[in-house]
């Protein structure tokens, strides 16, 4: 068939993100509907979204405290990205999966993963301490972008198995430069796998700004090259990140394949507690984003709608304090585990030499006493 003959499939125009990020709440917290992204939320949902964002921020600041107190080796804050994380994860169904990077404490919360358990990676007690299978929340993934392939593989499996299940894979703007997310998006599209690639574009990869990361018009435009739609959301508008995720998830669930979401947001904190952002970004840039605070904006909306009263605030406050207390209790001075457990989980069927090495370590431990 002559290459000139057939119309293009899929029609590229249907893949392009809208000119501007989807925004449902303006800067004054007023709601404006956007074609194609209807809101299906009840008042209780609005309150839940708020609750999760506030909890995420509190859990996050508690983690930073714990790091400052020497309780965690390092920690990667989500400050400023609450709406991006919560909106996306909230749109998932019970049976769905999340494959996170290392910055997704907000998504973890929404998915019911105990923040204290996740912190063990950063404390260094264990490499992880939650059950990914039971929580349907993958292990925090440090090698950038690699989890996107696991997400795709999981989604392919679910599809082959005829299961009603959608997978959300979070990664950062920097991750889009790596080969793995590229391969993941291509595989997902080829197999029509039910994955949503959720990029939190927080403008930086450690010190490297987006402008040095890519020349693409937007990250969402990268979807075109995989033949899947690219969506763009104001990442500091939780209703926008929710509505865009809703659409992408519904598509995936309906068997229409993967899509890419770019949530345009900003990392208000240092890259991690080990980082010094004053070396690469200006106070004025920070100030510009501060006024776009995702929680403040949503608060204005809730207040307008009469959904935020002191009782509810107090309730969240109480809950947040509970989280913080449990987190502290979990990691504060948590002793390292039994060093002999080091040999337990490497293999189901370990090689014989593990016995010798275990014995060596046991002898060393005895000598220490």
């Amino acid at each position, binding site marked *: 068939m002559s290459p000139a003959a057939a119309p293009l499939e899929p029609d590229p125009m249907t893949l392009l993100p809208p000119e501007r990020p989807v925004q449902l709440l303006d800067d004054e917290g007023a709601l404006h509907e956007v074609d194609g992204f209807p809101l299906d939320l009840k008042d209780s949902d609005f309150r839940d979204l708020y609750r999760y964002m506030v909890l995420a921020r509190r859990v996050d600041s508690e983690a930073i405290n714990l790091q400052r107190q020497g309780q965690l080796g390092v920690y990667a804050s989500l400050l400023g990205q609450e709406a991006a994380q919560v909106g996306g994860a909230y749109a998932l169904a019970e049976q769905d999966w999340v494959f996170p990077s290392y910055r997704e404490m907000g998504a973890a919360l929404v998915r019911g993963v105990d923040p204290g358990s996740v912190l063990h990676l950063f404390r260094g007690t264990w490499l992880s301490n939650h059950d990914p299978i039971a929580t349907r929340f993958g292990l925090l993934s440090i090698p950038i972008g690699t989890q996107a*392939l696991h997400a795709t*593989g999981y*989604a392919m499996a679910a599809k082959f198995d005829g299961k009603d299940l959608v997978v959300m894979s979070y990664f950062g703007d920097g991750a889009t430069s790596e*080969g793995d997310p590229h391969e993941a998006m291509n595989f997902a599209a080829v197999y029509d796998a039910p994955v949503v690639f959720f990029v939190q574009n927080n403008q930086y990869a450690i010190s490297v700004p987006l402008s040095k990361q890519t020349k693409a018009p937007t990250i969402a435009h990268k979807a075109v090259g995989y033949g899947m739609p690219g969506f763009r959301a104001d990442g500091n508008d939780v209703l926008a990140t929710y509505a865009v995720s809703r659409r992408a998830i519904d598509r995936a669930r309906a068997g229409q394949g993967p899509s890419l979401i770019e949530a345009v947001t900003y990392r208000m904190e240092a890259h991690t507690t080990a980082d010094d952002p004053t070396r690469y970004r200006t106070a004025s840039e920070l100030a510009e984003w501060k006024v776009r605070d995702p929680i403040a904006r949503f608060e204005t909306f809730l207040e307008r709608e009469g959904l935020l009263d002191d009782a509810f605030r107090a309730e969240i406050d109480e809950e947040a304090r509970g989280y913080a207390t449990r987190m502290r209790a979990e990691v504060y001075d948590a002793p390292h585990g039994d060093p002999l457990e080091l040999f337990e989980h490497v293999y189901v069927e370990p090689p014989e030499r593990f016995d010798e090495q275990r014995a060596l370590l046991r002898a060393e431990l005895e000598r220490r006493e």
Partner: protein
Amino acid sequence: MAITLAQALNTALHDAMESDDRVVVFGEDVGTLGGVFRITDKLQSRFGDQRCFDTPLAESGIVGTAIGMAMYGYKPVVEMQFDGFTYPAFEQLVSHLAKMRNRSRGTVTLQVVVRIPYGGGIGAVEHHSESPEAYFAHTAGLKVVSPGTPSDAYSLLREAIDCPDPVIFFEPKRRYWLKEDAQLPVRTEPFGRAVVRREGTTATLFAYGPMVRTCMDAAAAAEEEGWDLEVVDLRTLNPFDTATAVASVVKTGRAVVVHEACVFGGFGAEVAARITERAFYSLEAPVLRVGGFDIPYPAAKLEEFFLPDVDRILDAVDRSLGF
């Protein structure tokens, strides 16, 4: 019945897929084409294209999605088309496939087999004849297997697919056409067991994969010299059968380790160091190593000068006897 090593592998895949519908086979050209070596021949027509399928051209993608599928509960058996094309997947292999179970404190088990046709001797172009087994043997969390006979090819592949730990399965491509009288299905010794392929007293030759045959030939040729060589087929590099290796050296007092890979930093160093640690007083000579030179795999017309052969092996035996 005489079967080839390639047929044994194909049958093993077929039988594994037949007995467990969670076994899925994928990679580049493994579906419609049946693989460039036809190891996956007819699997797609027999089991359908959700059980055996072609992927886009991306090895990291293949291993990374295999990990996701294994987390779901499938048992992926994926192919890297040639040894030299395993490297794009290195991060997924080393940082995830090897480590996920440990990192998850045992909650995530990755039952994945990565098949790699490896080694030289078939006159191929660059990157199609490499022996990267040392990279994976040194990677904690993986198991590394390499059969040298058709029976072992069948049995070890079945065991690899059944194994709850991730397995890197090195297929000696120059031996795909090696024949053996065998009745499939066959089960040979399990992982972690080396096998004495030939008893002898003069010295022990250690080998795995493609070099097993070469060592048997060397042992046969050595008879002329009046040498009675023992040949030990290591079969699984990790787990490693230290006991059998040491017992052989205790008996013979001399050992030569043979592989195609470069000697420097190769797996032979581990075999030599390990045996020496445990059979020090039995050794009449240091364990010697025979392998490729410490250079990149050469052009096809020159591979005969690079690869260990009977002469190079017997020369090493001679040096061992000279100690």
